[in-house]
């Protein structure tokens, strides 16, 4: 007699995640974010955050000394790396390497691979940042970590409910007129953006982060007034899904994409130029084996 199992809740998944090695992600991201937001923060604060995670510290140093930056001198400390590469570069490097850890393994599905999801996440983050900087002349500091984490909910579903997640992917493969997150809602009762929202909230990340992840498919529902972040995240995500490093393609939200562009006063052609340049960079990283 099969026991009737209570359907899994978002809360169950959050608790499971916090008891797994994914949980160390939250602390690091929160700390790095604090540094970005605190005007008095110094290079040494970033240094401290990175150095308290020895494997991350080693990864950052290894990457700093890799061919990508082609430095003439060997970087021996995080402090040194910040001086040579710049604060933002080191910060992004640390975020990439830390968040990437979670995507750097797992099942290979016919249509899905965690590594592919990571490539997508990285592309979304870089695209979003570049849009902010090149079109809106803003720093883009905040959007980068949010974009990296926007699909973290999928990782959680895959990690703790692999059978059901595979079921979602199978259904999506047979009928790609459906939105992937709609299938999730059917199977789980919620989708990966809701899981990501709960998780970021649990990790005590800022409310606008949580909000952007929650509404990255539906930016018009964002609860943060005047925030551009959900829109840019949505725009970058949409572009990547459709023509860039994609995970799924979603077609029938094109009108929303146009609305979002209009809302921010952006021009699709200009955005696509930015996106395509960015993706070239991502593909280059992939070729050189530097995604993780």
């Amino acid at each position, binding site marked *: 007699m099969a026991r009737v199992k209570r359907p899994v809740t978002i809360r169950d998944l959050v608790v499971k995640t916090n008891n797994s090695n994914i949980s160390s992600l939250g602390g690091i991201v929160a700390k790095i974010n604090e540094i970005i937001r605190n005007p008095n923060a110094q290079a*040494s604060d970033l240094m401290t955050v990175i150095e308290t995670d020895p494997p991350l510290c080693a990864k950052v140093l290894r990457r700093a000394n890799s061919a990508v930056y082609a430095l003439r001198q060997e970087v021996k400390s995080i402090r040194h790396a910040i001086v040579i590469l710049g604060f933002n570069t080191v910060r992004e490097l640390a975020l990439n390497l830390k968040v990437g850890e979670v995507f750097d393994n797992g099942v290979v599905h016919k249509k899905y691979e965690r590594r592919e999801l990571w490539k997508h996440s990285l592309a979304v983050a870089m695209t979003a940042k570049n849009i902010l900087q090149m*079109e809106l002349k803003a*720093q883009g500091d905040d959007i980068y970590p949010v974009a990296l984490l926007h699909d973290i909910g999928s990782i959680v579903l895959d990690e703790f409910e692999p059978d059901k997640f595979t079921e979602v992917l199978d259904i999506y493969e047979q009928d790609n007129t459906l939105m992937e997150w709609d299938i999730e809602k059917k199977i789980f009762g919620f989708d990966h953006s809701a899981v990501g929202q709960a998780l970021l909230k649990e990790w005590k990340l800022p409310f606008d982060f949580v909000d952007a992840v929650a509404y990255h498919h539906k930016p018009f529902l964002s609860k943060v007034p005047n925030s551009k972040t959900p829109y840019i995240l949505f725009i970058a995500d949409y572009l990547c899904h459709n023509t860039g490093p994609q995970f799924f393609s979603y077609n029938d939200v094109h009108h929303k994409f146009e609305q979002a562009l209009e809302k921010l006063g952006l021009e699709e052609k200009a955005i696509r130029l930015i996106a395509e340049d960015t993706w070239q960079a991502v593909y280059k990283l992939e070729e050189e084996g530097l995604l993780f």
Partner: protein
Amino acid sequence: MKNEVDILKEENEILKIKLRHVQNLASVVELEHKKDLENHLSVLLELEDANSELEKIKKNLEYTVQEKVEEVSEMAQILIKTNLELEGLLKDAKQASVAKSEFLANMSHEIRTPLNGLLGMADLLAETNLDIEQKDFVETMILSGKSLLEIINDILDFSKIEAGQLKIEKVEIDIKVIANGVLRLMQSKADERQNTLKLEFDDNIDNLLIGDPVRIQQILINLIGNAIKFTENGYINLSIERLETNNDTNSLLFKVSDTGIGIAAENVKKIFEQFSQEEGSTTRKFGGTGLGLSITKQLIELMDGKINVVSEKGHGAEFFFVLNFEKSTMIKEVAQVAKEVAQVAKEVAQVAESITVLLVEDNKINQKLAKKILEKQNCIVEIANNGREAVEAFQKNKYNIIFMDCQMPVMDGFEATATIRKLDGGNEQLIVALTANAMDGDKEICLAAGMDKFLAKPIKKQAIIDILTSINK
């Protein structure tokens, strides 16, 4: 045409967009660089701060280290100096102590030799025909002389222990025989003070053990003598008990208890100290050197024991100590047979023919004394005054035994012995050394010089009888 224009227009538009992007990026990057510069500056400042802090710490450290080095080297010098002084003092003290003990040992010797002469002659005098008054004088003389000898023996023992010259012998002993002997010896003293002497002997004690008979006897004599001295009209009890019976080692508890005047609690510890009796007046009242208990204590400690006393003023005292003795491997029966054989031999000796003796001795009194003792044992005694006379006598006559003093003028005993050994028949000659040096080691020197046996002076009647008995066998 229109197409080309459109394419150019399109390209122009893209270039415009790209230009905008580059310009925007430049301003963002400028800001970023500004931030980095600020960061670099703060890092530099931090480094500078850290550097000056380091400099400070380094200076402090150098200063402190220098100070410590100076302090330590100063202390080391003082220590070296003190050490040298201490070494000097220690050397002086050791030399003084050795000199003192040697002096005491030698002095007691020098005193013992004439005293023995006096005592020996007095003994002989007592055996002549004397009237009652004369007999009384002689007996008093003997008594006083014996007391003096006892005191001198105590001092000699004590200085030997102090000089580290006293060694504990390991021979076969029978504790019961020793205890009975001591009791027999002390009986007359006990009688003098109307004391009853008793022995309680545990039958579990093995007959033959390994120990130093002389020192055990001395300990028991000291303790019983002490008990007699402080008890009148009472009981003195010697008890020897085996503590456990499941081992080859005999762990024996010795107890000497009396019903005498006892010791006040506050003085119990003091009584084992040198030159101390319970109080000054005790010495005047009861006599003694105050060395007896101290020697006893040290002798027991030399045998790995520890003496204790339980006492109460007016209610007697009990001295007790535990000594461990190895069991002798010799079988009891053998010892018994040997004893019987010795007894028979002794009896035979007394009826044997005259023994010829050459007595080599420079001291006239000792000559006389030894001669008397020997003659009483049926010996024909000839005298030689020194080694050379002894050698000459040996060449003329044959002797059953030669008693040879060691220290003599003209030719000493060692040389004389060596000379005789080289002469015809000299190897077979029985030569018994007489030596006044009672220190351990003399025996070895005598035997090494070629002498057969060894007798410590003062010459005792029994020792001479034993030797004579052994040659009669």
